């Protein structure tokens, strides 16, 4: 179906790019626009820990050379924040006061690290790890052989954790129900996994949670994480990893259904016929579980993008969970997570 349809993709991650190239394959003539708040072309977030292995030039972690976008005739709108989507007039509003029309819209804005409300007062004392820029600033804040406290954990944080250990840093994990997010693990296995983390060289402290964070003095840039019992852990950087919450603020007035994420049917279409969603931003209706649920992991996310793209171009394919979600402990006694295998 050749057309001059304007397919707009909000989000420049695995889902967005998977979708873009699929769209191009299926419709050589359509307009494709990818919108992102980032200033960089697409790179894989899961490559960010490699920065600690010395790959600190963003050009080394790009998924495609910049020329790729021209070759595929994909317009890349960077440093562009979407503030509102009007599904009635099919227009997108940007923070820079521009409006853009779309024929079909795919939202894959992904997720932002969740920060529990009771820690919100200490945001300024913690580091994020969601972008190249954030990762670099962690890299700069960590003196060689320095120490990092990982609050919660989650498989993104633990992936960073194991890289940090491997590159000679000290890592403390304050474990809680988020530690193995998004894995769902039985409560009786938990202890073994925590042990495995220690075996991998991380210090783990469980069943106590942070109540506040204190900034270090002039001399030592270290931060002190105060625990319920009044005791504390000192580290150069504090990294909260409490899983992801979908970035949906800009969709609030769009008329698209939202619970935590954008609610989509198995074909990844929202309740609006011209809007699809894919990746960490959407909750997909699952017929067997009779519930909306999230699917994580880069292979899932990419698959979602491709499925959405096919359905945007006339197909009616349901998304199938492709990701093995079991957490294991290998013969060496280390944790193996499918989310770590790229």
């Amino acid at each position, binding site marked *: 179906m050749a057309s001059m349809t304007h397919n707009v993709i909000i989000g420049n991650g695995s889902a967005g790019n998977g979708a873009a190239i699929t769209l191009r394959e299926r419709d050589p003539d359509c307009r494709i626009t990818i919108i992102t708040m980032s*200033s960089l*072309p697409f790179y894989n977030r899961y490559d960010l820990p490699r920065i600690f292995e010395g790959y600190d030039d*963003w*050009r080394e972690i790009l998924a495609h050379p910049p020329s790729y976008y021209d070759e595929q005739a994909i317009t890349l*709108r*960077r*440093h562009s924040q979407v503030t509102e989507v009007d599904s009635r007039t099919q227009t997108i509003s940007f923070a*820079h*006061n521009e*409006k853009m029309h779309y024929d079909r819209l795919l939202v894959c804005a992904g997720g932002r690290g969740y920060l529990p409300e009771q820690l919100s007062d200490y945001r300024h004392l913690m580091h994020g790890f969601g972008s190249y820029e954030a990762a670099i600033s962690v890299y700069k804040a960590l003196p060689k052989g320095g120490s990092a406290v990982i609050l919660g954990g989650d498989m993104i944080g633990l992936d960073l954790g194991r890289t940090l250990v491997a590159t000679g840093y000290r890592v403390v994990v304050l474990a809680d129900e988020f530690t193995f997010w998004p894995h769902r693990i039985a409560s009786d296995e938990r202890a073994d996994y925590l042990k495995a983390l220690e075996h991998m060289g991380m210090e783990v402290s469980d069943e106590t949670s942070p109540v506040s964070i204190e900034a270090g003095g002039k001399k030592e840039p270290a931060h002190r994480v105060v625990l319920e019992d009044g005791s504390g852990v000192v580290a150069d950087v504090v990294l909260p990893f409490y899983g992801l919450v979908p970035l949906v603020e800009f969709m609030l007035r769009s008329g698209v259904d939202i619970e935590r994420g954008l609610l989509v049917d198995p074909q990844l279409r929202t309740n609006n016929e011209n809007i699809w969603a894919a990746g960490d931003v959407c909750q997909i209706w699952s017929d067997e579980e009779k519930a909306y649920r999230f699917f994580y992991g880069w292979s899932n996310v990419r698959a979602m993008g491709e499925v959405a793209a096919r359905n945007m171009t006339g197909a009616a394919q349901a998304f199938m969970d492709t990701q093995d979600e079991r957490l294991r402990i290998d013969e060496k006694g280390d944790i193996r997570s499918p989310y770590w295998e790229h």
Partner: protein
Amino acid sequence: MGNNDIQIAICGSAGDGTIAAGDILKRTMARCGYKVIAFDLYPAEIRGFGKCVARVRISTEQAYSLKHQSDVLISLNDSDAIAHVGEVRDFGAVIFEDSPVARVAEGAHISAHVRPAQIPYGLSQRQISERATGAARSRNIVVLGYLAGLYGLPADPFRDIIAAKFKTKAAAVGEGNLRAFDAGLQAGAAAFKLDDIALDPPIHGDKGARATMMTGNGAVERGCLDAGIDTFFGYPITPATTIMERLAREMPKTGGRMLQTEDEISAIGATLGAGYAGARAATATSGPGLALMVEMIGLGVMAEIPAVLFVSQRGGPSTGMPTKTEQSDLNLAVFGGSGDAQRIVLAPTNVEGCYRCAGKAFEMAECYQTPVIVLLDLYLSNRYETVIPPETMPFAPKAEQAPSAPSGDGRYRRFEIGENHTSRRAVPGQAGGMHTATGLEHDEFGRPSDQAQMHMRMSTKRHEKLKQALSHPDLTICKRFGDEGPVDVGILGWGSTFGEILETMFAAQAEGIRCAAMKVVMLSPLPVEQIARFLADCGEVLVPEMNYEGQFANLVSGALGRPLTRLNCLTGGPMEIETILEQVRALAKARTAA
């Protein structure tokens, strides 16, 4: 990408402070000891909607022209800047307003045009400015701060230059702009640098203090002052006006007198009057003004009165393109006027040259008793280069004039025909020097005469005396660059275009083409022998110039009858090195083929 040569382009609409921002940037960089070349494009409207572009090339080693690719583009107005995104190199930066006031049409925001390999940097220029100063006017200063913050350029030189720039205005204005700069600096330092742009410390850091940024017009002004100019008369006309403005500021300090007359006709008239009375006098204008002046120039030639005219060419004919550059007044400068009005015409090729030619023009006007035209163009008049002023005064002071001793019949021969065709000149007030200067043909005493042989002899005198100018002391009238001996391609050029020609020649040599270039500074009288010697070495000869037919090529081939390849551009902007280089390649290819 080297860290010793970056070019920054600032683009906005008239009234956005584009030019001012570029000015502060280049002065600061020069102050730091970098080599800087800068050139601004601006529209005829004072405000309104015309496009302004300020380009500043900052390098640790001497450069000869702007690069055709910039490393950074700063947009003060997207609708103007979007067209220039293409000139930014890969992994270069585009800096823009990310919260515009007015609704932006789809695709009209510059972020829609930044290439994937370029790095977008958005900031709220207007709001940062309004926060710092209460008004949006200082956006241009904000972006400078941002630039400094982003690339870690030294902030204090910026602050000094900004303070100096606004010291004539109300104190609040200066302070406001410093606040705007610091606010921008903060934003820039906080921004995450993703491009690969960096600048090594300057090699000539030590000379930084003495090095100054000068435009061609600025250099003309210094030349005038160093040559001890006494009086100046002028009438505003783009792009020559700034010469008058600068002299207005400087001359009185040394007792000189600048008067803005009511038009060009009276300006040149007054200049001749003062010259007759023995002053070092000059005027400055552009093509249209020169057209008004040529009749007076004729009088100057006929009455053998020294006068200096600085003529900065712009797009013509008629009112033409007042703010665009062109080299199309060569004919008017060399030939303009009634009768055989031979005069001296010098065409410097860079800012340094403007300085030398300006000073020398006064020497020569005096020495050969004739109007001397120094021919610039807008590109040279307005482009900035770093210049390190000479430590010793390079110009001869005003020669003491005195009448020759009375000859046999006891009367002073003002126009005596001596062995070198020049006569002793007396100025009013000197005893025994009384005479009448006139536009009529005259005899040695200056008395009107229309006798055939008298006109013959006087014409010979007026032409022959100028030949000595070809060997005037310490003045480069033409110069050869590049490979010695026979070459495949020789580039012959004049005026502002020679910067690009030189960069082209280096590029061609780098590509293995045997290549040489010659600049010709003295257009009248023309250094025919030197040019002939150069042409003899060249397989092919290319003459690039910014006019339609090749006025200079005509001049040369008229004198030498040698076929030349012409390259003529009328874009209103400088020639692109690429354009010349293509021609050179083509000629070299044809050459080796043959």
